[in-house]
């Protein structure tokens, strides 16, 4: 993990993902505000069980209404993701505004990489189990 300035020609991830997250937020608000149709979950229709991402829209809707407990219960992993996005946006806005060095993970060891990898898989599986158990 290093803090360094961008090299000439290097992709500015902070600018890209800050833009993407803000546009996505605006799009999500627009979609929910105008009550545009949300595609049905094919997995739920076929099996009767929630898929690993069932509840992400309801979670966002609850979060917009500041009903935090309902949002967490609907999809904990999505809620965590929605919580991390503003933190990343704040970091990106600060480093862009003040032209600060950027956080980069240049060389992640195989061991650390595997820990992150398996943790992510376990988190997705645990979240899915929660959704099935809660009948989200």
């Amino acid at each position: 993990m290093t803090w360094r300035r961008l090299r000439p020609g290097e992709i500015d991830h902070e600018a890209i993902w800050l833009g993407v997250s803000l546009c996505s937020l605006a799009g999500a608000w627009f979609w929910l505000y105008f009550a545009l149709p949300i595609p049905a979950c094919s997995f739920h229709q076929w099996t009767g069980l929630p898929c690993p991402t069932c509840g992400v829209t309801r979670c966002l809707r609850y979060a917009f209404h500041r009903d935090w407990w309902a949002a967490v219960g609907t999809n904990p992993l999505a809620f965590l993701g929605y919580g991390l996005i503003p933190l990343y946006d704040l970091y990106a806005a600060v480093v862009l505004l003040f032209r600060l060095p950027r956080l980069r993970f240049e060389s992640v060891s195989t061991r650390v990489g595997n820990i992150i990898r398996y943790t992510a898989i376990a988190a997705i599986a645990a979240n899915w189990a929660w959704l099935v158990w809660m009948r989200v």
Partner: protein
Amino acid sequence: MTWYYAQGDQRQGPISESELDALIAAGTVNENTLVWKEGMANWTPLKEARPSGPGAEVPAGWIKCTATGRYFPPEEIVYLDGKPYSAAAKGAVLQGVLQTGTLPVSETERNGPAWENRQQLGPFPAIWETIRGVLLEPNATFTSMRRHGGLGTPMLYYVILGWISGLAQLAYQFFSHTGFAVFAKNPNPVLQMMGTTTFIVVWAVLMPAFLILGSFISAGILHLSLMICQGAKQPFETTYRTYTYVRGSAAALLLLPVPLLGQNLATGWAFICGIWGLVCMCIGVARTQEITTGRAVLAVLLPLIVCCVALVFLGMTVGFAAAFAGQAGHH
């Protein structure tokens, strides 16, 4: 002669000339990697510090190694599949053959697809050649695709084809009076007031922005999936370039006037385009990331397995109708 090279902020080395060649062949060092050796004033990109192209002084009779891009005396060259490789590339060649079944190609030989050379070819021939290459010869096209060079060029290709294809779908929806009933029934009075025509105009204008936004989200998910599958050997830039070239070309397939033959045929055609797009994506990811095809298939399908919403996004890419004909659902 010993070299040092930059990996992030870390200085690596010293390494010998042959070790540097091996790192180039393995893809650890590329033409833009900053390198330094004694006598140099500053750290300089490899392509300037040690030029090996036509501008460099190359002894007569030396042969260019396909994997490293450098010139070697004939006795240090072996021919594999008709292409010259140096001894320094042995590790990369073996790894490439074992993992992907193909021989490695140097970054300097990666100069495709045709859209990357549109200044020379002209925009329309370049678009046509790129569509043809990606959809009909994906293996050769992605084996020679530039993995670096920014996001703008492939994004432009994707937006042009995606927008044209989207407008064609929109026109079909409008003239066949399908897909917009949801707005007439929408409880929101603003939408009802806007009317279908206004909405179509607004949507047509905003479509490029949605395409760009969608391309970053989808390519980001694909890259995360590659990281989970231990297949992200190249940076996000490479994944994004692969994604946009495949999706742009697959969108072009929808320009064929199949919807005019009927709704069922149109749905079937959209399904075929989606499946073929997935096949090209798997081949593209395997060739650009230099991973096994099986790992590439797993990485491409993982978002579809984990997130069935991605199936809907795929449907949105291949057919506008899929997104709007759906009923308010479970998500």
